[in-house]
């Protein structure tokens, strides 16, 4: 039975991880995500899992690598400075085709930055983040309910495609409290992890989980195979939300917390008689390019809103039809820089055709 609860976004992530069957959590304290390790340190052992507060973010992601290689569901969570440290391990996991879930509750940067909300890790998340050329699955919740649902989805997609998956939220979504329905884990058919290390029995093949590929043509073949997998991912797993786009003359587009603020601004615009809609990508990789392309056949003006000086706009511009125009409004992340609905409404009025 689905339970109705009133919880924080970060707690919803932790609850969903347990429901998704996570066996191992490895993490390190950093604001604004520490509710996740705190919750799991209390609840995961009760559910038969292992919690370790690692010596560092590097230690934590490599513990995820080891546990995942052994065939269990494993995760870590952090924020900007810690996510940067984890990039080494994420690259090795991508190179070893290992699943695993990484939660990034974004804070400001660069450097130590600050603890208020930010969307400035979009590039880092969607371009792979580490060395060598790879992509990871990136999901962007905009509500506490989605923190719960998309965390479970992250585990399923990661296992299905053998690509690390990131839940990319920010301190607004992580720290806010909303009521949610704690849905049971979706029944998804997943392939057995026959590649996992388990102690080779006589007659079984040797399993080696590695990213070193020295054979002639071996690395090239890996990259082509991954590109094919990314294409399947884009074909099957694109997720987005549209609001009032049917007759829209202007489409506002934003993800996560800025999409919530934009939703109010769109309602204000409709109130004022302007035909404005909202397109919110839920998967950032794969980016829902086809939704932009399809809408831009008819609607020729877009307004991209971000809590950064503009990162997702690259993908929006690559996705719309050539003659569609993309305006931008963003603010660099910082204390007090979260835009208000009125502020976004003002931008809508400026660019409305």
């Amino acid at each position, binding site marked *: 039975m689905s339970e109705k609860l009133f919880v924080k976004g970060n707690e919803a992530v932790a609850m969903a991880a347990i429901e998704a069957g996570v*066996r*191992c959590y*490895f993490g390190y304290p950093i604001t604004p995500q520490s509710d996740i390790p705190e919750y799991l340190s209390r609840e995961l052992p009760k559910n038969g899992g*292992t919690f*370790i507060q*690692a*010596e*560092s973010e*590097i*230690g*934590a992601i*490599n*513990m*995820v*690598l*080891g*546990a*995942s*290689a*052994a*065939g*269990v569901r*494993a995760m870590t969570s952090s924020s900007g400075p810690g996510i940067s440290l984890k990039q*080494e*391990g994420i690259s*090795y996991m991508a190179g*070893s085709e290992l699943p695993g879930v990484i939660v990034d509750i974004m804070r400001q940067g660069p450097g130590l930055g600050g603890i208020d909300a930010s969307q400035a890790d979009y590039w880092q998340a969607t371009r792979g983040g580490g060395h060598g050329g790879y992509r990871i699955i990136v999901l962007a919740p905009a509500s506490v309910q989605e923190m719960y649902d998309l965390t479970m989805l992250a585990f399923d997609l990661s296992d299905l495609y053998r690509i690390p998956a990131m839940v990319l939220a920010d301190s607004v979504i992580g720290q806010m409290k909303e009521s949610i329905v704690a849905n049971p884990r979706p029944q998804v058919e997943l392939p057995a992890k026959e590649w996992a*290390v*388990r*102690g*080779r*029995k*006589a007659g079984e093949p*040797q*399993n*080696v*989980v*590695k*990213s*070193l590929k020295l054979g002639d043509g071996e690395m090239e073949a890996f990259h082509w195979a991954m590109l094919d997998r990314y294409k399947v991912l884009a074909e099957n797993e694109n997720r987005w939300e549209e609001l009032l786009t049917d007759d829209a003359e202007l489409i506002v587009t934003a993800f996560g917390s800025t999409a919530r603020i934009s939703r109010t601004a769109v309602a204000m615009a409709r109130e004022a008689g302007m035909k404005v809609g909202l397109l919110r990508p839920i998967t950032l990789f794969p980016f829902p390019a086809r939704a932009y392309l399809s809408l831009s056949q008819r609607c020729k003006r877009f307004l991209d809103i971000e809590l950064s000086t503009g990162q997702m706009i690259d993908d929006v511009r690559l996705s719309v039809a050539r003659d569609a125009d993309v305006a931008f409004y963003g603010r660099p992340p910082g204390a007090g820089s979260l835009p208000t609905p009125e502020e976004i409404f003002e931008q809508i009025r400026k660019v409305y055709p």
Partner: protein
Amino acid sequence: MNQVFSRPESLKDVQTHFCPGCQHGTIHRLVAEAMDEFGIRDRTIGIASVGCSVFLYSYFDIDVVEAPHGRAPAVATGAKRARPDKIVFTYQGDGDLAAIGTSEIIHAANRGEAITVIFVNNTTYGMTGGQMAPTTMPGQKTSTSPYGRDIKNDGAPFKMAELLSNLDGVAFSARVAVNSPKNVLQARKMIKTAFQYQVEGKGFSFIEALSTCPTNWGMNPLQANQRLADEMIPYFPLNVFKNSENL
């Protein structure tokens, strides 16, 4: 006639990439013998590190995870916590374990992870061409210490077996060498003891094996073996530094 000597079952019948006179091969063999003796090959997970030790999976007939440079103890922690019924060991060189991976080894040891760590100390970075390692001897010339290791500039070599033995989480810590038949026999015994700790669920076990690197030392195998006896063993004494259960 009885066959009295053969390749351990846990080793594959393949040639290694190791240079002539390198002692990785001997250490590999002793680890494989310990696995055979305890009959644990079918439940062992090896964690390979970065350096000459990376090809663990090419020589051992076991499942292996390749860890990023220095991170093998963290990867081993993940694997062992995920599958506590498995035997998990890391095999790491000196640059990997005692430089870039100091954080991971010290914390895995301090948590008393139920794993075994085989640490091969040849006082240099072998794979990358003989640069200065955290265990390079005072005055030793390498490609990045061309005037010899200067303790004032670079610090003194780490004595990892002693250092780790001070941690409460460590159950067993010993230093061995494989430069003579006598030392090989002692090393075989110590490596078996290290695995026995894990098989019996008695905590974290650590073996530091002194080893030669003739190629990067600019020596022939005999000279290298002599250097190990004359210079390394006096500085890195062969000893059992901790044996908490007296196994």
